């Protein structure tokens, strides 16, 4: 879509886009280019010698079991975050859509976890599950479950999943609720007159009509689990115990800043960039479709 009426100025438009373009060039394109360039180099830890090695860094990643462990972990993690997050928020949204009384109160209380920083969310859940004084850990001990995320890798993973889902819940909830409220009431009423109960109406009418929203949220949640959860991991487990919660984005940070392996870290960055680009394309293709829907 284009404007029919435009202004004729020679230099003004360049002046207007300049701040955005300069920042984009300096802080997006330059570093991204450097990431790609560095991924082809090997540098010793003191930055003294640099050698151009073509795709050796990528080849090294392909032979690195720790990297594949992190890939598998990230897939499991994002599958858990997306599926649990979507299921819980869909349940809450369907219930909130049903009730008339108190709907705004419920909504107000459900929106604010979005405003809590992921790192702070990590701290809160770490407090609840703290092995020595955490109240939830204490309750679990009461029913015979030893919960110590500091030494148990699976429990650490479970905990970052819980914290990540909690943090993203409001977002999913609001989109599902908006999706539900845009379903024409006449459809629901017609089904009710034909004798369909609430369960039947949900599965046969609402659920299919919500699928575009659900798919959109799926992509957003996977993106969130891949990149948005850095703060949760760093505040809660620092990737540990061992490498049990070292998801890909955390590994990039850890290898690059702690390990000083710039080449390897950059190669991982490049792979992640490709993942984001693919996911974003999927998201946009889908949005195109949703417009026609």
């Amino acid at each position, binding site marked *: 879509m284009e*404007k029919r*009426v435009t*202004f004729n*100025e020679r230099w*003004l*438009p360049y002046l*207007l*886009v300049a*701040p*955005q*373009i300069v*920042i*984009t060039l300096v*802080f*997006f*394109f*330059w*570093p*991204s280019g*450097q*990431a790609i360039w560095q991924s082809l180099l090997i540098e010793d830890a003191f930055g003294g010698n640099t050698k151009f090695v073509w795709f050796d860094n990528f080849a090294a990643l392909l032979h690195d079991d720790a990297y594949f462990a992190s890939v598998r972990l990230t897939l499991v993690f994002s599958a858990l975050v997306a599926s649990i997050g979507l299921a819980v928020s869909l*349940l*809450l949204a369907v*219930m*909130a859509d*049903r009730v*008339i009384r*108190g709907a705004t109160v*419920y909504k107000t*209380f*459900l*929106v604010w976890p*979005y*405003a809590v*920083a992921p*790192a*702070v*969310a990590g*701290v*809160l859940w770490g*407090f609840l599950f703290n092995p020595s*004084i955490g*109240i939830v850990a*204490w309750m679990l001990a009461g029913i015979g479950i030893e919960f110590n995320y500091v030494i148990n890798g699976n429990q650490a993973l479970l905990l970052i999943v819980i914290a990540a889902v*909690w943090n993203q819940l409001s977002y999913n909830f*609001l989109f599902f609720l908006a999706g539900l409220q845009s379903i024409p009431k006449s459809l629901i*009423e017609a089904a009710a007159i034909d004798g369909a109960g609430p369960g039947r109406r949900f599965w046969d009418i609402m659920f299919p009509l919500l699928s575009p929203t659900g798919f*959109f949220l799926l992509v*957003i949640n996977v993106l969130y689990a891949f*990149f948005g959860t*850095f703060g949760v991991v*760093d*505040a809660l487990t*620092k990737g540990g115990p061992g490498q049990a919660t070292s998801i890909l*984005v955390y590994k*990039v940070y850890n290898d*690059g800043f702690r390990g000083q392996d710039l080449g390897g870290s950059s190669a991982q960055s490049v792979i992640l*960039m490709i993942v*984001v680009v693919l996911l*974003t394309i999927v998201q946009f293709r889908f949005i195109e479709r949703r417009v026609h829907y």
Partner: protein
Amino acid sequence: MVENRPFVTFLSHFVLVVGLVVIAFPIWMTFVASTHDQATMLRSPIPLLPGKHLLENYREVLSSGYNQGSGGIPLFMTLTNSLIMALGVALGKIAISIISAFAIVYFRFPLRMIFFWAIFVTLMLPVEVRIVPTYGVVASLGMLDSYSGLIIPIIASATATFLFRQFFLSVPDELAEAARVDGASPMRFFWDILLPMSRTSIAALFVIQFIYGWNQYLWPLLVTTKQSFYTAVMAVSRQATVVDTVPSWNLLMAMALLTMLPPVLVVVVMQRQFVRGLVETEK
């Protein structure tokens, strides 16, 4: 609803209340922990109801930080930094996005589409995937440990530019035509007509970007080494990782609560703009 089913309605309320309790539980425990003294918070099980030390805990973290003597930073300082960063990011993003969208929609000039796509691709590169080289760039520009280093590298915004572009495209052409006929310059048109019309979009974006700026974690972690530039979220997380050596859970939780208060207030008070911003920036 289309029919009266008391049991289903009851079930809905029940599920929602259970959901609310589970979701609010971490916040409640944070609040409770921040109102007790240090000794109470070291004995398991910790209490479920608030204690009597609310004011002294909050006064202590605000004025002298987590622990005096060993380099604790007063929380009012980190909160101020967070506020500067959040406002800087939100207003900066809005300002540079609205003028670039204005240029792209209301002018025809060579390279216009190239600029448009250059802004578009930044959508695909979150800070997290290019941290090491971006850090390098900021360091070589001498922007470490400064507010400009905290703010400027993250204010380029494809989503905000798109939102304004979308909105400008929906503004009737007659307005620009009338302005031109009356001899108004483009900037005059922008200030007197376009900007006032964009008020609701600006408010919606402000809420989203304020939260985004306030909750930044990885970026401030990288570009600050001096305590005087630490943000509140960073301070909480740093303290949490060493809490077991000097365990003052009461103070840590008071810090956490004060840190999440401003963005939560913004969301709750500006709920309408928040929901609108959320839905619109994702289009």
